[in-house]
């Protein structure tokens, strides 16, 4: 077990706060447990609730390197683990004459392109490994990942085994576009990140966008909370709340009124049908008399 710079959930939560991330109790507990038990933490939740941010802030707080593996459909071992630089190998062969060709180690480390998982094996506990949007990758990739996560050791036939001294902290995020395999879930701690409560969201906006005045931040957070309860296909996340507050503050709007809301709606609603719908119901989103007088 790696020595951690904090000894309780509260201390961890305090540390995250200092780095401008405001976790709730459940998330802080999950992170604390994941670090203490050396287990990957699987974070699920709607888009924009700050899943990826957890890894970034954690790396910053622990002073570790952040290694990010962005998953996508069709990702395979050569994009996640390592790849040989074939063009350079070919050039090396061409550039050398017949006598010295034998001397080049064609499969030596200088021709190896290191990808995130191999980098994480090298860095070991000096890194935070973020495996982002794992639900986008194929099932086969998940099985492969399971193998790497179990050992944090990679065997390259031409070079040998590269193993991490101590495993890195691992954060896996998923938008839940499909269910991840149970075998993987069993290996991880799990936390579902929900949209924050109103108070917390106001606080998050204040921390992330300090130039936004408190009344405006509150009005925006309230409006976003109402938007989430409306029949929109894509519910806005915390990132959108921050964007919206920023846009309004940038335009110098002291309050969220109908006009300002319509002008900046693009910061929070990013689907054409939703946009039209919300524009028609803008009165339900903006409480015009709130915070006046």
């Amino acid at each position, binding site marked *: 077990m790696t020595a951690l710079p904090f000894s309780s959930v509260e201390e961890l939560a305090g540390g995250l706060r200092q780095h401008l991330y405001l976790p709730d109790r459940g998330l802080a507990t999950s992170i604390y447990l994941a670090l203490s038990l050396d287990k990957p933490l699987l974070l699920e939740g709607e888009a924009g609730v700050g899943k990826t941010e957890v890894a970034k802030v954690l790396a910053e707080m622990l002073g570790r390197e952040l290694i990010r593996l962005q998953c996508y459909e*069709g990702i395979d071992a050569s994009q996640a683990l390592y790849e040989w630089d074939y063009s350079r190998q070919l050039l090396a062969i061409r550039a050398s004459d017949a006598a010295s060709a034998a001397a080049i180690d064609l499969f030596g480390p200088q021709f190896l392109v290191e990808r995130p998982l191999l980098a994480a094996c090298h860095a070991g506990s000096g890194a935070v490994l973020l495996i982002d949007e794992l639900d986008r990758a194929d099932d086969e990739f998940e099985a492969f990942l399971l193998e790497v996560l179990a050992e944090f050791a990679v065997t390259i036939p031409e070079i040998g085994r590269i193993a991490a001294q101590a495993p890195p902290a691992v954060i896996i995020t998923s938008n839940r576009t499909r269910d991840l395999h*149970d075998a993987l879930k069993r290996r991880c701690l*799990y936390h579902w990140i*929900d949209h924050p409560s109103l108070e917390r969201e106001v606080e998050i906006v204040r921390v992330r966008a300090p130039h936004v005045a408190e009344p405006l931040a509150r009005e925006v957070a309230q409006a976003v909370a109402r938007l989430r309860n409306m*029949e929109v296909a894509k519910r806005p996340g915390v990132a959108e709340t921050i964007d919206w507050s920023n846009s309004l503050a940038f335009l110098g709007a002291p309050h969220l009124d109908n006009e300002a809301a319509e002008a900046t709606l693009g910061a929070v609603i990013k689907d054409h049908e939703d946009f039209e719908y919300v524009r028609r119901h803008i009165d339900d989103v903006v409480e015009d008399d709130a915070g006046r007088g």
Partner: protein
Amino acid sequence: MPAGDDYAHLVGFGRELRARGLPVGTGRILNFCRAAGVLAPVDRRSLYWSGRATLISRPEDIELFDNAFGAYFGRSELDETMSSLFDWLDRTHAPAGETTIEGADTGAVAGFAEAEEVAGDTATRMVASGTEMLRDKSFDTLTEEERNHAALLIRHLKLSVPLRTARRLRPSVKARRFDLPRTLRSSLRTQGEPFRRAYRDRRRKIRPLVLVLDVSGSMSAYSRALMQFAFAAISAGQKVEVFCFGTRLTRVTRALRTRDPDAALGEVAATVQDWDGGTRIGESLRGLLDEYGQHVALRRAVVVLCSDGLDRGDPDVLAAQMARLGRLAWRVIWVNPLKGSPLYQPLARGMAAALPHIDVFLPGHNVASLEALGRVLAE
């Protein structure tokens, strides 16, 4: 650190969850105990969150977990944290009471399924000469025996959905893209001369098939047939998702995977509410798109909708949702049994609203037309 008795207590909670149907293995329980050990001394809140982090890994299971936690450790000061959870659950899940329906309604369908089980043997003995006639007979005029035979015919349809190209490449003999790594590797065997040149090509993947079936009163005979159709597709190795709707949407894929179609329909009867409450296609589609719009099953899929198009909802809603579906799916096929009649014209408001967003419009009222549907799918 918790004492031995405490651990026994914790293990007991894991077993309690298992008894309530959650897949809690020994590994998870072990993690739970470790987590509690790390957080010791544990208060209720830490215990709750360490359980949440270790024992479950699906948001759907949270409600069950909360109930079990409350029952096992007693309900007290936890309520404050829990209330925010319940808010969330209320928004995403309908209350349990809403999804069950009155016994009278299920009776009709369950009885139907039973009758068919009894008649099961006779169906297989039916002579082939009747088959041709049966193929052209509309589903709602079939007798029990004919229905069984038709079910067999449908289940033996050979179905395939066209493949889509995936991003990944695989070795190929057809010259599509040059494969430098492989060429180079094999050239090492021939002193660096690339005698053997390798090529690769895009992989192909199964395109998902999604069936959305109207199970309101007038449509149930046809939907049953399509349920058999879904079975044929599943056994042909296709990726299939099946949803049923009357006024609400229900996902029945899971039921179809584990049981025979009749039992599955019985299960649908138990979960779908008000069979005769009329059809709200637009609302149901919105439910489908909101919940599964981001799901891989729907994206670039072949979507087959089966409904008579007699929508009691707002046609504008239906048109908007069909447009959304059209953008998300690869192909939208509407199966309308009424189209089996030569006199039929799609004049019903709902149907007219949906028509511009449909790629293929088919009847699907008898075995022959389902065969035609199979051919359309393969195109």
